[in-house]
């Protein structure tokens, strides 16, 4: 009984300790942001590896998610004779939820895990220690550009996901299932509000970008510097990112759409 309590206490203290480290780490990385903007090429290279290389994955996933939404939505809506609302359904679910959330999950798997593994391996091969020896702050030099690149890339990727998803839904709905083209578009434009839906979706994707990249770089920096430690850190990075994104999605949705 006492050992169980001790174990619980140990776990809780460990969790709080780690959370504190993560926040100090984030502040440290944040203090490196101005430096990153001065050395712009550092950021460009990271945006390339984090963002550009994720375009194909995000585009293909978005297309298929949109097409599936079109098919499923049509099946349900045709029962009520409301096929014309298909555009609203596809666009609203993509812009509000699926765009930011699925992109964040894909982003965690595609870019987040790579960031963790990269930084973890740098630590394991003592490259970070070597930088410190040369009086170069590894958090500012290595972590800050990656962190900023993730934050910049996520909203752009989420926007691409949403628009390609809408096109996929349009293709299935109008092209294959014969929903009226004008009704699809006019109902969509009438019901999707710029401030309520689009801006909130962008805010969500921005928050998810911060969360996923933060977890990824912190797990890499905090990894036990062995091959096993790095592999565990990579797994943790993806798992924690998924939990955090889904949990925060509920919180943000409750804040944005919960009232009235």
């Amino acid at each position: 009984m006492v050992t169980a309590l001790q174990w619980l206490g140990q776990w809780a203290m460990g969790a709080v300790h780690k959370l504190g480290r993560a926040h100090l780490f984030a502040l440290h990385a944040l203090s490196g942001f101005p430096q990153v903007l001065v050395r712009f090429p550092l950021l460009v290279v990271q945006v390339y590896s984090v963002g550009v290389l994720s375009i194909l994955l995000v585009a293909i996933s978005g297309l298929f998610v949109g097409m599936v939404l079109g098919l499923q939505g049509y099946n349900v809506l045709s029962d009520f004779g409301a096929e014309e609302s298909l555009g609203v359904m596809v666009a609203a679910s993509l812009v509000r939820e699926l765009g930011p959330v699925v992109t964040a999950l894909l982003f965690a798997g595609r870019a987040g895990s790579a960031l963790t593994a990269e930084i973890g391996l740098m630590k394991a091969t003592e490259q970070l220690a070597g930088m410190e020896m040369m009086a170069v702050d590894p958090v500012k030099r290595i972590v800050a550009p990656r962190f900023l690149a993730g934050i910049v890339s996520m909203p752009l990727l989420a926007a691409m996901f949403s628009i390609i998803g809408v096109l996929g839904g349009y293709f299935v709905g109008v092209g294959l299932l014969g929903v009226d083209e004008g009704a699809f578009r006019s109902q969509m434009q009438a019901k999707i509000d710029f401030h309520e839906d689009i801006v909130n979706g962008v805010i969500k994707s921005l928050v998810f970008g911060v969360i996923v990249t933060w977890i990824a770089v912190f797990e890499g920096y905090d990894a036990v510097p062995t091959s096993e430690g790095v592999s565990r850190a990579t797994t943790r990075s993806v798992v924690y990112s998924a939990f955090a994104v889904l949990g925060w999605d509920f919180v943000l949705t409750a804040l944005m759409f919960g009232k009235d």
Partner: protein
Amino acid sequence: MYSRTIEIWVGIFVALGLVSLFLLAMKVSNLAELDTGGRGYIITARFQNVGSLRPRAPVSMAGVRIGRVTKVGFDKSSYEAIVEMRISGEYDTLPTDTSAAILTAGLLGEQYVGLTPGAEEEYLKDGDEIELTQSALVLEQMISRFLFNKAEEAGGTEEGKAEKKATGSAKR
């Protein structure tokens, strides 16, 4: 050059992302059409019953949207609903005896405010109130009234049940 290709790709990426955001804003959402955000003028109307009218519902005249409902309030002294709506600035020639009715788009559709122009020479200005209003039709009240009348006419309960079924399937 390696870094040059990377820079070009990043440029394409950022441009694609911004184009997507732009398309979402202009093609998917309602930003492109009738912006009643700050411009235009506000008029109010009092209704006995607004049904399920909500803020942001369309205000239309002759079937064309000319504004949006901005607020649905309640007057505690007269027990009426006060509907505040913003009309786009370009439609500034509504006569002062314009009447407002709460209508429904289709059987299951959303409710909106329909304006019908009057014949006065003077036009509604910012802050004016529409005097002639017609409340929302509440479907349940209508059906129950209809059934009640039918039952009274027939003087039997069997008839009433049959009618209920008929209206039930008509609604579907």
